């Protein structure tokens, strides 16, 4: 018993010794340890309020413990319709974003790699990245103004849509739940497609040109080149991107949603994050909001782990 204690003390002493001898290194580590402790891991403890009847004046520790009551109101109680609507919208927006948005950067990268003229390529690439560097407020500000449809003025996009017959003369796209998802996804493509293509473009550029010559000699046409050389060549990148995408399935561009949606479009636009914002922070139900956030985080984490597991099963590529 005493021996064990001694040994433990010895070990502790040795660790301290190592740290002291190398104190500069540990001093360098200190800032982010403190930072992550304060701003990331401390709030994790704050998740406790999801299990409490949280009263701000009593604090997280002082409030009464209520078990899973908050989760129950979410899943099958008073908040259920709103919560599941948010859940559905998150899923659907994510899925549409994946189906329509994910292939576009890949196609762009493919086409960029086809442009032999360096100047033309650089110019078009640089132009296509630009929206990524503009803020969500700017982007949505542009979109909302261009989609404006009022008595006095009709935004350029609205008049375009009216002219090609996609919407009625009086339709207010921004106020109409039917149009939220396309608006959101197209805005997303405009903002991020060019930038996302960089990663794929680099992957394509890294493919050995000899493989293209080989398939040319073997008799492949352009599509077969893409199918048998380009795609396999960028497979690791592709898999990583898909895994990331699946992992973030339940977190769609939250800022963009709050900037684009409004009370008229909650039906299709309200996502988990905005639900948490409205119920938890603005609606005065922090405990329920925390529970919803926790639900979101846990499922998201499960998705990352699951997707990563599968990617490891089928290929050598994985996130960790």
């Amino acid at each position, binding site marked *: 018993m005493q021996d064990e204690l001694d040994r433990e003390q010895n070990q502790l002493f040795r660790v301290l010794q190592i740290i002291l001898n190398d104190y500069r290194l540990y001093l360098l580590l200190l800032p982010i340890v403190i930072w992550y402790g304060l701003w990331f891991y401390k709030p994790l403890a704050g998740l406790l309020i999801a299990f409490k009847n949280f009263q701000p004046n009593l604090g997280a520790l002082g409030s009464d413990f209520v078990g899973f009551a908050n989760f129950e109101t979410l*899943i099958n109680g008073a908040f*259920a319709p709103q919560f599941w609507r948010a859940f*559905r919208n998150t899923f659907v927006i994510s899925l549409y974003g994946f189906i329509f948005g994910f292939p576009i950067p890949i196609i762009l990268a493919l086409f960029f790699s086809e442009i032999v003229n360096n100047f033309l390529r650089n110019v078009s690439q640089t132009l296509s990245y630009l929206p990524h560097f503009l803020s969500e407020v700017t982007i949505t500000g542009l979109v909302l103004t261009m989609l404006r449809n009022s008595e006095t003025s009709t935004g350029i996009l609205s008049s375009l849509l009216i002219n090609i017959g996609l919407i009625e003369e009086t339709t207010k796209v921004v106020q109409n739940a039917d149009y939220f998802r396309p608006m959101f996804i197209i805005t997303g493509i405009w903002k991020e497609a060019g930038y996302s293509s960089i990663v794929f473009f680099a992957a394509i550029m890294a493919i050995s040109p000899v493989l293209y010559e080989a398939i040319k000699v073997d008799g492949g046409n352009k599509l077969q080149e893409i199918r048998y050389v380009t795609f396999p060549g960028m497979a690791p990148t592709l898999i990583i991107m898909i895994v990331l995408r699946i992992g973030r399935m339940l977190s769609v561009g939250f800022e963009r949603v709050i900037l684009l949606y409004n009370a008229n479009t909650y039906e299709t636009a309200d996502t988990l994050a905005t639900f948490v914002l409205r119920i938890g922070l603005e609606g005065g139900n922090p405990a329920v909001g925390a529970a919803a956030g926790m639900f979101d985080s846990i499922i998201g984490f499960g998705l990352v782990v*699951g997707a990563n597991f599968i990617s490891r099963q089928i290929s050598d590529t994985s996130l960790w």
Partner: protein
Amino acid sequence: MNTGEKRLYVENYLSQRMILFWLAGNTIYTLLYVNNVTVSVQMGFFVMLNIALSLFAFLIAVRQRVYLVQWAYAGIGLAIFQFARLFWIPEELTNPILLYMQILLVATSVAALVGSIICIQRSRERQQYIDEHNINPVIMQK
């Protein structure tokens, strides 16, 4: 021309495609479902179940490609499950959505079933060839 020998080297793309068809069909089915039923806890779990199933189906597809017979049975499970769902469609749904969903369920179910049976059949041929020719397992290594 020895089919068994061919099975040693040519992967089972047919089964893979069938299961991937299941995956695609099921995704459309899921979208139809969530966009047309009232939101409730059932819908939430339906979505989560389908996400999990999609990942699982993808795994099945990849495994059937390399003639893993256990995963063919999992594929049959997928088919049966999809068929059983025909009787679980909420009553609130009406034509034409209902019809689309039924078609999708039947089609995906059949695809998964056919793919899996093909996989079973082919892996049997393959195993037979391996047994008959006493093939060194080293050859099978990837």
